[in-house]
């Protein structure tokens, strides 16, 4: 029986399996993702990330593993897919639904995408990070949908006794002449009674009718009606609210609790238990848990960084800087050093998890980007076999790197085991900032030399407090390290750094090196990992070089860029954002670019530093300079959902503005002073640009790039460059307001502040 879907013999066929199931089910493996193109260009890489970036590494590590992921067609005419990735706002479920709809000829509205439980057989294929999801899912998921469609066609052809090539599909129905029937009618008949291998061809991008067109999110209705269920909204029998009294230094431990019984007897409180990093309180409501944890009288042992503050960390970083190789050439060099403060990757939804631990099994619900790692660790911690720990992945209210770690899920499991009862654990907002993961402080030193209109050398030494990658990605890189186009004994962090960082300019001899110091803060990747800081330092130096060489910043970048896609986004941003237009006194433009995840992005901003703007007053907020206009141009390779890409770019922009101007953690005596959104100044309405334009360029390649993080670095850099231009001084420390503490810190004890009672005095 011919299996060719469209008569184009040159097109690659992809293999999947009809899986024995009650209704039609098609499974595919990850062997479909082998990065042919990357392997083909490996031999002479000018810089590792040019040819083989982090996403390629993830694809390569994914390739040898088995474990099927499957698309099912149901009797109600819908298709369903349990995605082995986590939805945290980036829109992955929508893009995957579009992929399935495209190949299955089914309206997107009839595709249901849920999040798969932890599936150990998928090995490291169940990891959401590195802007790699769409890139790694694109081919396998479409293949499964294409095979399903092919099977429906075949089933209808057999039923009607007509040749397959007379059968077509549209909007969830199969047609032949006057006859038609819905997918739902065929779902059972098309099911396989044993698992068999089949193959199909995929649509070419030119034939796409769903992918490549703007589509709104599939979970938008649930979000705007309040029906979208996050972890804390789930109802698990007897999983009562739980919160933790935490130490006054990061990862401090309990020495003694003086009044356990007294707190256990408080209204609504059911249990109190000492845990690794605090004292857990379970009760009828979270409010009563807050009352309980505040009433606890606890003696603490200091944590491992109890003696550290911003200035001690900075001194250690400066000591650990790797040397620059090229001597400074006086007037013919640019020498600059930039400091980037600790920053919090806290999403708006506080970390939470439900755990129901019994003597012989456990069940966990949490937002987890590496659920297999969570399952393995929690099983080990509880002393249970891995297959007795079920881990459900819950959509998250943001992530920004936080949910790569399962700290809260492991803690919920510990508490449930100690109390012998199910718990619904939430960290308080203050816990989130003070004890949660942070993007570490770093120092980037750059020296560039030039002569006769050429840049001869560019050296960057990035020194950072250790970034934890303990979430399991490590196994991937160690298992794949032989494949890397880099030599020597690189640490894992150095590997990630080299794979993600590049200097896209023809700057002669280029070196970028990372050194990390091992301080035991709770760190982790934040959206775009090293790039926001590394790229901002680089783009500021590019502007400094342009000024020294008396060139316009856009013209300078154009002439030195060695990448056509970056040049295209730069040109478009300059055009749409009207680069060089006359700006009023106290305002200026800034432009920057970055390429990563096989995509390219340029951002042009206008900043207002007039006294009237800088000194405007917002009660309980910080104001300062305001970005008034932003133009973001993105080349997403093959853009799959322009609406979603635009949304990610807007988010990246607001992250970049915050990193440049307002948001940081101040470490003092082993703990951040920040304890709330009124201390940690993420961009707010009064700081966001009133005018934002995103341009998604038409397809430039045949493969989608990663887009969830791509815009953070160029946005941060563009704001920094604009600020340098308007003030005439290149800022050396970010965010620019870090030197001023703009709030009164909450007390360290008790660890969570009490809720106010005057809410009715603040209505509008």
């Amino acid at each position, binding site marked *: 029986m011919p299996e060719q879907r469209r008569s184009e013999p040159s097109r690659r066929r992809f293999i999947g399996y009809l899986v024995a199931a009650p209704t039609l089910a098609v499974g595919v493996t990850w062997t479909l993702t082998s990065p042919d193109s990357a392997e083909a260009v490996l031999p002479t890489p000018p810089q590792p990330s040019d040819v083989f970036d982090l996403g390629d590494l993830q694809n390569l590590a994914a390739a040898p593993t088995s474990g099927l992921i499957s698309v099912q067609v149901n009797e109600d005419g819908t298709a369903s897919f349990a995605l082995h990735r986590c939805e945290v706002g980036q829109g992955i479920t929508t893009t995957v639904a579009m992929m399935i709809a495209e190949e299955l000829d089914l309206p997107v509205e009839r595709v249901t995408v849920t999040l798969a439980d932890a599936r150990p057989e998928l090995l490291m294929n169940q990891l959401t990070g590195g802007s790699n999801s769409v890139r790694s899912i694109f081919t396998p998921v479409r293949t499964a949908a294409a095979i399903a469609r092919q099977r429906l066609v075949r089933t209808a052809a057999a039923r009607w006794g007509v040749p397959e090539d007379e059968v077509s599909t549209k909007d969830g129905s199969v047609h032949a002449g006057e006859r038609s029937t819905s997918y739902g009618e065929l779902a059972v008949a098309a099911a396989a009674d044993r698992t068999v291998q089949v193959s199909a061809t995929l649509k070419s991008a030119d034939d796409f009718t769903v992918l490549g067109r703007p589509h709104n999110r599939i979970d938008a209705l649930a979000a705007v009606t309040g029906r979208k269920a996050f972890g804390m909204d789930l109802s698990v029998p007897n999983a009562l*609210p739980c919160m933790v009294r935490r130490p006054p230094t990061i990862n401090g431990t309990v020495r003694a609790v003086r009044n356990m019984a007294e707190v256990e007897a408080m209204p609504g409180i059911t249990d109190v238990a000492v845990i690794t990093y605090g004292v857990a309180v379970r009760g009828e409501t979270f409010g009563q848990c807050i009352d309980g944890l505040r009433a606890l009288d606890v003696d603490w042992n200091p944590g491992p960084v109890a003696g550290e503050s911003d200035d001690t960390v900075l001194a250690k970083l400066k000591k650990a800087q790797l040397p620059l190789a090229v001597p400074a050439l006086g007037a013919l060099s640019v020498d600059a050093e930039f400091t980037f403060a600790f920053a919090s990757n806290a999403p708006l939804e*506080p970390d939470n998890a439900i755990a129901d631990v019994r003597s012989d099994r456990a069940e966990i619900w949490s937002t987890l980007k590496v659920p297999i790692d969570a399952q393995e660790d929690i099983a080990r911690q509880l002393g249970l076999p891995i297959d007795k720990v079920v881990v459900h992945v819950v959509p998250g209210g943001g992530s920004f790197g936080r949910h790569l770690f399962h700290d809260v899920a492991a803690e919920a499991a510990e508490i449930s085991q100690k109390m012998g009862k199910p718990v619904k654990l939430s960290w308080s907002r203050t816990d989130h900032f003070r004890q949660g993961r942070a993007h570490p402080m770093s120092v980037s030193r750059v020296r560039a030399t030039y002569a006769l209109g050429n840049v001869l050398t560019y050296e960057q030494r990035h020194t950072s407090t250790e970034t934890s990658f303990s979430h399991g990605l490590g196994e991937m890189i160690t298992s794949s390290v032989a494949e890397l186009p880099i030599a020597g004994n690189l640490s894992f962090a150095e590997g990630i750094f080299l794979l993600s960082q590049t200097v896209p300019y023809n700057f002669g001899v280029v070196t970028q090196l990372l050194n990390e110091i091992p301080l035991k803060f709770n760190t982790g990747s934040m959206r775009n990992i090293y790039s926001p800081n590394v790229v901002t330092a680089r783009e500021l130096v590019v502007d400094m070089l342009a000024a020294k060489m008396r060139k316009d910043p856009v013209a300078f970048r154009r002439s030195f860029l060695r990448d056509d896609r970056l040049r295209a986004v730069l040109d478009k941003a300059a055009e749409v954002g009207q680069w060089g237009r006359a700006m009023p006194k106290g305002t200026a433009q800034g432009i920057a670019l970055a390429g990563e995840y096989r995509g390219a992005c340029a951002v042009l901003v206008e900043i207002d530093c007039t006294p009237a703007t800088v000194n405007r007053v917002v009660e309980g907020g910080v104001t300062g300079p305001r970005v008034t206009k932003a133009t973001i141009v993105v080349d997403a390779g093959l853009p799959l959902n322009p609406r979603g890409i635009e949304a990610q770019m807007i988010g990246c922009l607001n992250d970049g503005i915050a990193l440049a101007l307002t948001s940081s953690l101040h470490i003092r005596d082993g703990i951040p002073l920040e304890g709330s959104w009124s201390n940690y100044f993420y961009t707010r*309405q009064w700081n966001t640009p*009133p005018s934002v334009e995103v341009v998604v360029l038409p397809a430039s390649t045949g493969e989608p790039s990663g887009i969830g993080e791509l815009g953070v670095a160029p946005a941060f850099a563009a704001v920094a460059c604009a600020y340098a231009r308007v003030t005439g001084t290149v800022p050396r420390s970010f965010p620019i307001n870090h030197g001023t503490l703009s709030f009164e810190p909450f007390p360290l004890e008790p660890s969570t502040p009490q809720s106010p009672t005057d809410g009715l005095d603040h209505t509008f």
Partner: protein
Amino acid sequence: MPQHTFVLNGSPVTVEVADDVRLLWVLRDILGVTGPKYGCGINVCKACTSHINGKAFNPCSVPVSKLKPTDEITTIEGLPATVDRDLHPMQEAWLEEDVAQCGYCQPGQIMAAVALVHKVRAEGREITDDDLDGLRNICRCGTYSRIRTAIRKGEGRM
């Protein structure tokens, strides 16, 4: 245990709980109304924004004992019924602009937006950029510019 009665999304409810438990936890943990979200518990993030007698407020900062039996509490779940429709025009505007990313803050954003429109109407004017700048609800996904567009669109339809 003290009893507290108020009107929730059009229907009277009575709960038994200590006087000082904040309304957010009464709604979420006792009544199972989970549209209002916990983002800070100290009236900063505004993720729990709901309405009391038609005005925006934050239940995380109101002890349940402060409510009167006649007080009408509206959460995102009850918003469409206030205009006798399946979706409030502000929710429709939100959908058209595809505002939500993670969605966690959006019920609170919508409730704040509706209250803002009512407020400026009562003042006999339309929403300005300054009004939008004054909205305090945090969106950590940074959807602010789409929120601004949606609010103006929703205002036009209310």
